């Protein structure tokens, strides 16, 4: 690990000022950043610890939404009564991620900003356009079995590893940030960008911007009641997704009145399945409708040599998940 200076930020303004120095990064829980520093992927000269700033509260909002501080730990959000009752898909996505130990330390802001687990990104002996712009992408012709099938570019086929972000993309949220140019908010989906020809940028955040809070949109009870997060992985627990889906569906008299679908481990960020939703709204809650919805979304899939299996996997995952959610109303 490269040597670095460490300081604790007194408040957000102090943190933003400190991170403006060259080679400076924010430190939250550190479960991803410290690991990447050990690997030599990240080489900050200075860390500004923001994990003890007063952004660790979860509050109900008057409109039925929820405000979540950026420094809230993953485990605390998963265990929060409002999340368990009103956003079960979010609780399940958090509980599907990492291990108990990691969830106790990792922050919500850090969860959103964690880096890809593409093996080439994590191996400094290999080229990687995300880690070293312009050096190339060996994944496109190499080991890409678990990489993107949607929205990738010639320069990058990485996937975003967060489970929580997939649920947030289905629910809808605003990310509140403060930075050198003041405060602003960024919607999810929208925080994470597609790689294009600038894969070094995972998100639309500007340098020095600090995530202080998320505000979740209210999730209507009809949707929340039938909502879930389902993750396919290569072992039963503590493993990154091969594919995942966050889904919520409101069914009345056998017809889908409203729905939310987002898929994970398929793209550079969480993928809101707008086309699937459009196909499903107003359709009968039948397996044929679910399949049509999944296929409408996946028509734009562009799998690589060794990950074409993900296309039918995601299709079947969407169909099975919607089927389970609607099981007792068909």
């Amino acid at each position, binding site marked *: 690990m490269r*040597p*670095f200076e460490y300081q604790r930020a007194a408040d957000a303004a102090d943190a933003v000022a400190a991170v403006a120095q060259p080679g400076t990064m924010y430190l939250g829980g550190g479960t991803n950043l410290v690991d990447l520093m050990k690997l030599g992927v990240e080489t900050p000269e200075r860390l500004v610890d923001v994990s003890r700033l007063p952004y660790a509260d979860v509050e109900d909002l008057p409109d039925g939404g929820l405000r979540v501080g950026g420094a809230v730990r993953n485990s605390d959000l998963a265990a929060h009564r409002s999340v368990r009752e009103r956003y079960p898909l979010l609780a399940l996505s958090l509980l599907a991620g990492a291990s108990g130990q990691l969830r106790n330390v990792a922050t919500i802001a850090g969860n959103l900003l964690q880096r890809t687990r593409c093996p080439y990104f994590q191996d400094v002996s290999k080229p990687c356009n995300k880690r070293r712009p312009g050096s190339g992408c060996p994944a496109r012709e190499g080991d890409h079995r678990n990489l993107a099938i949607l929205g990738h570019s010639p320069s990058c086929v990485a996937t975003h590893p967060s489970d929580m972000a997939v649920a947030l993309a289905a629910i809808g949220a605003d990310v509140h940030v403060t930075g050198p140019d003041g405060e602003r908010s960024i919607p999810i989906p929208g925080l994470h960008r597609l790689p294009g020809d600038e894969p070094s940028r995972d998100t639309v955040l500007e340098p020095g911007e600090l995530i202080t809070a998320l505000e979740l949109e209210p999730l209507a009870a009809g949707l929340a009641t039938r909502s879930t997060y389902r993750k396919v992985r290569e072992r039963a627990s503590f493993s990154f997704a091969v594919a995942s889906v966050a889904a919520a569906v409101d069914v009345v008299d056998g017809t889908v009145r409203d729905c939310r679908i987002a898929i994970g481990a398929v793209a550079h960020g969480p993928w809101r399945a707008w086309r699937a939703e459009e196909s499903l709204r107003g359709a009968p809650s039948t397996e044929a409708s679910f399949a049509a919805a999944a296929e409408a979304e996946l028509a734009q899939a562009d799998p690589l040599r060794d990950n074409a299996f993900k296309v039918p996997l995601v299709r079947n995952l969407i169909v099975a998940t919607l089927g389970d959610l609607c099981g007792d109303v068909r």
Partner: protein
Amino acid sequence: MPRVTPHADITLHVNGIDHPLHADTRTTLLDALREHLGLTGAKKGCDHGQCGACTVLVDGRRANACLLLAVAVEGSEITTIEGLGDGEALHPLQDAFVAYDAFQCGYCTPGQICSAVGMIAEARDGWPSGVSGDLTADPVLDDDEIRERMSGNICRCGAYANIVPAIAEVAR
């Protein structure tokens, strides 16, 4: 002349005792415990947060000591496997691991036990897991729940068949 790497003067509170420390900022909590304080119970397995051998309790919560910077946990109460018993009597989980023969080589055991202490407290606080059918009900630590909640601790000897009942005896 070699460049002086940044160091920090910190105090770690470990098992109820204050330990002043002058350490390179790169020092992880795990290395501080093992190399500076001589507390070698917490083990270095993968050093990347994937195996759980380094699990300790930070302010009562289980965490991977290998991914925490020592400077970042100044002000927190650290409990390691050495701090669980009272010096004479073992912690009930330590007794249960012995009674159930819940290890072979023993390398993962301190992490397993610290993790189980934290896990049982989480369940008593009502935290659900990924296999809890009802997210709002009080969790019941059956074998499936224990396996899921302990998935951050790997045992390469494969002693899981005895680890699960050892934890269950204390948890239920």
